[in-house]
C-alpha cells in the first residue's frame, strides 16, 4: 500500500474524487437512453432488441407496493442517470487505469487484496469495468472472467444460451429495468472439472450523484467445476438518491459448486434492489453468502432452483440495519427434483431506528421424495426503538418432505452492556462484541479475509451508532 493510503480504512467508502465522463446517457429513461447505451457498447442487434423489449416490460409494470416496503415509492426514475462511463477499453493492468479511478480503488484496498489472495479481479466504476484481470494459469485452463459487454461480444456461444434464462426479463420490475439498461458486472465460465482455488472478486463502485448502477452477472460452472465469487460494493454518501439494481444469474451444472459472497456496504442514500437466482443441476451445490451492512433500503432474496436430483442450495445471510436503514432480505428455495436439500440461516441486527425484515420462500411440490429444508432466522435488537419482522412462506404440498423452521428474537440488554463495560470495553466495543457473538457461528463458514472485513464493518457501524 502506498504512503498516502496508510491509516485509511479500506472498508469505508464515503469519499469521492471528481471525474469526467466521456459517455453519458443523460437524465431519465426512455427509448433513446436504451439506444445510447447499446450504441456506446457497439452491441449486436439482438441485444438492442432485448433491451428495447425489456424497456416496454419495465414501462408496463408498476412498483410492488402491495408487499414491498413503502420507501421504494421514493425512487424517482425520471431523475436518475442510467449510464456513465469514461470510455476506452477495459484495462488489464492497474497502470493503464485512469488516475482518478485508480486512486479510488487503491483507497478501497482492491489492488492490494488482488496481490494477496485473489485469482482475478474486476473493478467497476459507475457503469463500466475499469479493470479486469484473471491469473494466466486459469485462462490457460479455459476459465473466462470478463465484464458483461466483453462476455456477450466475444463469447456469445457460451453466454447467450443462458443469458436471461434464470431470471427472465419480466420476473419483476427491477429485473426488467436491469435488462433494459444493464452495463458491467461479471461473466464467468468455468470449464468441466476445473476448480478455481482462490476467489474471483468484483468490486462495484458508484461514484456519481443521482446515478444508477445496473450490473449484470452470469456465472456458469460446468460439470464438476468449482468457483467462489465475491462482490464488494461501496459509494460515497450523497444527499440525493442512488439506485443499484443488479441481476445475477448462476448456473451450476452436474456436480458443480458455486459459492457467491456479497459484502454490501453501500452508503445510506443507495436503494439496493437486486435479483439473484441460481439453478443447481444434479448433485450441484450453490451457496449464497449475503452480508448487507449498508444502503438505505435493500430488497434482496437470493434463490436457488434445485433442478437436479440431490442438488443442494444454501443461503447464509447477515443484515445490519442502523437508524435510517431498512434491510428487507431473505431467501428462496424452489425444490423441483427429488432428494434436494436446502438450508437457510438468516441473522439480522437492528440498531436504533433501523429495521430488518426477513422474507423467505420454500417451495416443495407434492410427490417429490426426500426433499429437506432447514430455515433458521434469528433477530437481534439493540435498543427498544428497533423493529424486526419475519415473513416466512413455506409451501410444501404432500407429506414426503422434511421441513424445519426456527426463529428467535433476542435483545442486547443494558445489563449485558454494563457487564462488558465493567471489564473495560466502551459501549460501542461492547455492542460490537455482542453483534459479533450473534453472527459468530455463521461467520465461521466465510473465507477468513471476509470474516475479518465483516468484523471491521460491524465495529465501524457500532461506533457510528453511539455517535
Amino acid at each position: 500500500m502506498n504512503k498516502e493510503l496508510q491509516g485509511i480504512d479500506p472498508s469505508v467508502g464515503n469519499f469521492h474524487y471528481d471525474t469526467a465522463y466521456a459517455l453519458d446517457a443523460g437524465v431519465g429513461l426512455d427509448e433513446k437512453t436504451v439506444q445510447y447505451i447499446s450504441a456506446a457498447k457497439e452491441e449486436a442487434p439482438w441485444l438492442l432488441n432485448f433491451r428495447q423489449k425489456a424497456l416496454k416490460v419495465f414501462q408496463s409494470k408498476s412498483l410492488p407496493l402491495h408487499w414491498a416496503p413503502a420507501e421504494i415509492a421514493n425512487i424517482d426514475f425520471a431523475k436518475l442517470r442510467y449510464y456513465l462511463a469514461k470510455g476506452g477499453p477495459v484495462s488489464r493492468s492497474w497502470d493503464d487505469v485512469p488516475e482518478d479511478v485508480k486512486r479510488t480503488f487503491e483507497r478501497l484496498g482492491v489492488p492490494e487484496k488482488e496481490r494477496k489472495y485473489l485469482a482475478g479481479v474486476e473493478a467497476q466504476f459507475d457503469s463500466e469495468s475499469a479493470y479486469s484481470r484473471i491469473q494466466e494459469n486459469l485462462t490457460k485452463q479455459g476459465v473466462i472472467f470478463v465484464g458483461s459487454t466483453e462476455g456477450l461480444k466475444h463469447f456469445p456461444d457460451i453466454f447467450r444460451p443462458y443469458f436471461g434464462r434464470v431470471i427472465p426479463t419480466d420476473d419483476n420490475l427491477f429485473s426488467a429495468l436491469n435488462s433494459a439498461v444493464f452495463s458491467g458486472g461479471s461473466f464467468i465460465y468455468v470449464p468441466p472439472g476445473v476448480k478455481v482455488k482462490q476467489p474471483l472478486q468484483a468490486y462495484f463502485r458508484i461514484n456519481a450523484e443521482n446515478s444508477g448502477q445496473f450490473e449484470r452477472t452470469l456465472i456458469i460452472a460446468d460439470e464438476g467445476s468449482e468457483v467462489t465469487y465475491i462482490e464488494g460494493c461501496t459509494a460515497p454518501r450523497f444527499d440525493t438518491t442512488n439506485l443499484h439494481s443488479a441481476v445475477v444469474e448462476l448456473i451450476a451444472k452436474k456436480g458443480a459448486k458455486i459459492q457467491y459472497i456479497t459484502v454490501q456496504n453501500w452508503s445510506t442514500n443507495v436503494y439496493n434492489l437486486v435479483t439473484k437466482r441460481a439453478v443447481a443441476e444434479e448433485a450441484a451445490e450453490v451457496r449464497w453468502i449475503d452480508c448487507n451492512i449498508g444502503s438505505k433500503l435493500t430488497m434482496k432474496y437470493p434463490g436457488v432452483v434445485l433442478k437436479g436430483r440431490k442438488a443442494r442450495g444454501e443461503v447464509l445471510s447477515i443484515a445490519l440495519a442502523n437508524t435510517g436503514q431498512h434491510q428487507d432480505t431473505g431467501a428462496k428455495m424452489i425444490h423441483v427434483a427429488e432428494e434436494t436439500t436446502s438450508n437457510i440461516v438468516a441473522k439480522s441486527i437492528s440498531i436504533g431506528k433501523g429495521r430488518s425484515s426477513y422474507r423467505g420462500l420454500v417451495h416443495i411440490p407434492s410427490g417429490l421424495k426426500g426433499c429437506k429444508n432447514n430455515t433458521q432466522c434469528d433477530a437481534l435488537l439493540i435498543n427498544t426503538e428497533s423493529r424486526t419482522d419475519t415473513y416466512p412462506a413455506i409451501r410444501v404440498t404432500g407429506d414426503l418432505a422434511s421441513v424445519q423452521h426456527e426463529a428467535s428474537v433476542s435483545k442486547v440488554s443494558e445489563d449485558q452492556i454494563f457487564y462488558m463495560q465493567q471489564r473495560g470495553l466502551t459501549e460501542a466495543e461492547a455492542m460490537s462484541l455482542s453483534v459479533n457473538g450473534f453472527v459468530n457461528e455463521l461467520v465461521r463458514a466465510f473465507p477468513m479475509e471476509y470474516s475479518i472485513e465483516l468484523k471491521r464493518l460491524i465495529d465501524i457501524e457500532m461506533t457510528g451508532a453511539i455517535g
Partner: protein
Amino acid sequence: MKALEIRGLSVEIAGKPVLRELNLVVPKGEVHALMGPNGTGKSTLAKVLAGNADYKVTGGSVLLDGEPILGLPPHEIARKGLFLAFQYPMALPGVSIANFIRAALQARSRGTPFSATAYYQDLYKKMDLLQIDRSFTARSVNDGFSGGEKKRCEVLQMLMLEPSYAVLDETDSGLDIDALRIVAEGVNHLRSPERGFLVITHYQRLLNYIVPDVVHVIDGGKIVQSGDKSLALELESTGYQKPVAVS
C-alpha cells in the same frame, strides 16, 4: 492516599434513599469485608462504585487512589483498575471466554503489541488454579453456566485483569463448599500490598477462607459497625437482628 475511599456517599433509586452518607475506606493491601442483611444497600454500593448510571448519586464522593471516579463511564473506571465481580454475572451468547477476556485486556492496552501465545499461557495457568476445564475457553461467557461456574468465571476474569481494587459482590452465594474454597483460593492468590479488596457477603463462612483485615456492618444504607475479623464471628452467632452499637 492509596485507597478506595468512599466519602459521605448518598444514593437514591426512584426517589428513595438507599445509601445515606456512607463512609468506607479500603487502603491498598487490605481486605475489607462488608456484611449486612439483604436490602441494606450492599449491591447498590457495588454497582455505584462501578459507574452504573441507573442509580442517582445525591451526595458524597468516591476516590480511587485520590482520583474522583463518580460520574465517569463504567469502562473508564474499569480501566483505572476497579473490578467488580458480579452477584449475577450476565450471559453473553456467542462471545467466548477467551475472546471476551482478550477484548478486555486489549481495550486497556490499545496500541501495544499483543501476544496470543503469552495470553493463552497465562489464561491456562489461571484456569488450572481455579480448576476450570480448558474446554471453557471456547464456551460463551456465562451462557448456560451453573452458579459455581459463573463465579469461577468471574474470579478468572479478575485474575486475568489484575485490578488494583476488586469489589466482590456476594461471590459466595450459591456455592458449595468445594467451589467456595476454589474461589477463595483465587482471591487469596491475588492478595498483595498492591491491591485492595472489598468483599461483600451475607454469610460469615466465606471469611473462613478469605480472612479479612477489617469487617464492616452495613444497615439502613450506612456503616453501623466496624471491627476486626472477630466481628464476623460475633455476627454469625448473634445474627443481624441484634441491635449493634454504632462505632
